[in-house]
């Protein structure tokens, strides 16, 4: 008995010693001094499928840009740069886009990448029901000109077209792979990495190896790439504090100081604005909102800086406009168009005939910070506007689109002028449910859609000024989007994507 106890004790001691010395099995050696041997990324999402007909953007972007090249790429400022296509040009009507392709590139299964493959890919994408299908909303057809030239015909000019080709519409996978039974789990592209299916645990850890025949020598590809999925924010924070990942998205502002203390650099971009959408500008269900003075009063009633500090711990920039800082339509002085001025708000409400106050009904959902909703309610009450919230649960978006509410809290992307317009300003915009339309707005939208880059930029700024003056919205702030990285890794934030594309993550020189 005593001997058995001793043996058990010895086994325990050995295991404990093995445990203390075996940490290297789970922790990761950081890429020291910009080493190119290994890169480990923390992820907060997993790909449902590697088939490009599936959902492939947003927080899933890095999985896809690891294995698939895009026809075009963008630098950190949002400028379009060559990808698989070296040159591109529009015709005068801006409805025919001609792309010149790199010659001599092959997919990892040996199939040639050429104009026929591009046409097949875009067609494959358009036939799908991917949530990214809006990328191809204006694509009317694709034509092979010759093996290195392809033409994409649009039903109407799409100022976002070049951006879409840096995103899922631009992913190029081998057409020969689409009939493979493992198409969803074994992607075949021309990209910098190849998925190592034997070392991958689907839904947990995705292992990649450098594509030995990668064509693009203009940027560095790591020998191995690992993406670890953290479903739990606490687990991701622990992994960061333990130095287990080289880079990851970090949406937990309150933990950012801990992450910085662990030696990570903070990379920031601003892709979204948050605030109130004042939708019923013609007073269809809420006549009070038809008066611009009421809409302006709402803008003046909100202490944006106070809310930014309280809710987002100052991780954002106070603004009164919805055109993002990286867009041509952004006008810096409009950030301070509406300061916090409750007295002015009351004055405007009185002038609009609402000296005794008015009532608004806004939708709420569990996904929206309840303290934020309470603060908005309180600050509007201070100027005489009573806010009643209706919990709409998971019907939040559908109810908004169904024009059931005259105003609502919202977070919207604003990484290009046309995206901003088609999300919230055009007559058929997703978030213009009451179909607000003004002739001066239409004229500017036409220029933004069809004009030259310079004319479109100027029109976007003019439209921005009009929208702010007319108080179509009551924006609070642009939100910081944060991606942390170890000093050995150089991260360039994407201007239009929540996490950097793989080619924007490099060893530091």
């Amino acid at each position, binding site marked *: 008995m005593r001997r058995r106890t001793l043996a058990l004790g010895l086994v325990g001691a050995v*295991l*404990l010693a*093995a*445990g*203390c*010395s*075996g*940490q*290297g*099995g*789970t*922790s990761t050696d950081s890429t020291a001094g910009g080493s190119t041997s290994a890169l480990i990324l923390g992820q907060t999402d*997993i790909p*449902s*499928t590697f088939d490009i007909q599936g*959902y492939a953007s947003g927080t899933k972007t890095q999985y896809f840009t690891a294995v698939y090249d895009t026809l075009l790429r963008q630098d950190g400022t949002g400028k379009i740069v060559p990808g698989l296509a070296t040159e591109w040009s529009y015709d005068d009507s801006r409805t025919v886009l001609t792309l010149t392709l790199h010659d001599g590139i092959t997919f990892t299964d040996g199939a040639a990448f050429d104009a026929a493959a591009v046409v097949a890919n875009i067609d494959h994408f358009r036939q799908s*029901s*991917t*949530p*990214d*299908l*809006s990328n191809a909303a204006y694509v009317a057809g694709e034509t092979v000109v010759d093996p290195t030239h392809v033409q994409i015909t649009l039903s109407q000019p799409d100022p976002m077209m070049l951006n879409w080709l840096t995103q899922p519409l631009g992913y190029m996978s081998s057409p020969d792979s689409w009939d493979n*039974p*493992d*198409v*969803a*789990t074994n992607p075949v592209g021309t990209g910098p990495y190849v998925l190592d299916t034997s070392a991958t*645990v*689907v*839904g*947990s*850890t995705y292992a990649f190896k450098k594509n030995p025949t990668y064509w693009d020598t203009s940027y560095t590809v790591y020998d191995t790439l690992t993406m*670890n*999925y*953290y*479903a*739990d924010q*606490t*687990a991701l924070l*622990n*992994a960061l*504090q*333990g130095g*287990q990942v080289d880079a990851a998205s970090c949406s937990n502002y309150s933990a950012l100081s801990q992450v910085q203390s662990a030696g990570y650099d903070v990379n920031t971009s601003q892709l979204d604005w948050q605030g109130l959408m004042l939708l019923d500008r013609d007073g269809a269900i809420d006549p009070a909102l038809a008066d611009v003075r009421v809409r302006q009063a709402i803008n003046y009633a909100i202490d944006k800086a106070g809310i930014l500090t309280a809710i987002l711990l100052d991780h954002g920039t106070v603004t009164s406009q919805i055109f993002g800082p990286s867009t041509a339509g952004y006008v810096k002085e409009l950030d301070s168009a509406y300061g916090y001025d409750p007295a002015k708000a009351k004055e405007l409400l009185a002038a609009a005939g609402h000296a005794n106050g008015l009532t608004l009904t806004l939708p709420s959902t569990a996904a929206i910070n309840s303290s934020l909703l309470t603060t908005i309610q309180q600050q509007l009450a201070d100027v005489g506007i009573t806010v009643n919230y209706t919990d709409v649960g998971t019907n939040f978006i559908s109810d908004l689109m169904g024009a059931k509410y005259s105003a609502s809290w919202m977070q919207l992307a604003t990484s290009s002028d046309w995206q901003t317009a088609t999300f919230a300003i055009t007559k058929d915009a997703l978030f213009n449910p009451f179909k607000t339309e003004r002739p001066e707005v239409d004229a500017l939208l036409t220029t933004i859609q069809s004009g030259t880059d310079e004319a479109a930029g100027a029109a976007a700024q003019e439209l921005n000024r009009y929208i702010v003056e007319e108080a179509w919205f009551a924006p609070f702030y642009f939100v910081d989007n944060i991606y942390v990285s170890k000093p050995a890794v150089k991260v360039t934030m994407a201007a239009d994507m929540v996490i950097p594309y793989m080619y924007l993550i490099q060893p530091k020189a």
Partner: protein
Amino acid sequence: MVNFLVRRLLTGIAMLIVISTLAFSLLYLTGTDIARNLLGDNASVQAVELRAHQLGLDQPLISRYLDWLGGAVHGDLGKSWFGGSPVLDLLVSRLGVTLSLVVISTIISAVIATGLGVWAAVRRGAVDRVVQILSLGGAAIPNYLIALGLVTLFAINLAWFAPTGYTRPTASLGGWVASITLPVVALTIGCIAGTAQQIRSAMIDALRQDYVRTLRSRGLSERSVVYKHVLRNAAGPGLSVLALQFVGLLGGAVIIEQMFAVPGLGSLSVSSTIQGDIPVIMGVVVIVAVIVIGVNLLIDVAQGWLNPKARVS
């Protein structure tokens, strides 16, 4: 004993059918448009209808269930709706991870809880009170808080272990031990607390029996009395509570696997639930049910072996 085993086995199979029927019905009768969820808001009505047809969602629920059951009986649990991997392959790749956590936690808990329970029952007094206080504390603190404390102290501050991740034993035995140490400790503490209390109570009851006095009067050593006779009589309730704790550990593993980013059944069930991957969810339900029923069967057999009277109950 054979009759007893056959009876228990048949009960287990019946329970498995009931559980799978309930789970299948609940998952499909939620009223959500499954095909629409899978394809997203942009999908056309035709695409959604086609997908629904491909998945057999246009068939009556009973025929869908019988199809699934027919496959399951032959070891075919269908394919994941996301990624197309066979569900059984996914389960097999994750099962070992969860079982290693839960089984090791159970064994460690059984050994330590037995030691503490016996020590408290035999020594009583201050030792008993200390064990009771520790048990109460261990049972009261949720395992995710324990996990958080362990990670902060041993992984982040002391850097003795990695805060997240899992190393397969085939890749590195030392790495595997390191990667499961903190999750196992987090799971074990509550389990020890509950089991030690039960064993202590059962031991105290057993030590008061007449036969103990008789054994002592015959001159048997105290060690022989306690460990050979009393503990065997007290083991029944301990085993029962250990079985319950095992089931609890399976549930606890869901949270712990998430916190430590361990690729087990728990994290698979969470990710498949988020995605709405019903075949995988069903697979997890079935495999967990089989494990729970199997463990209960083993406990029944052990109880029967320890106490023949239990076989007729």
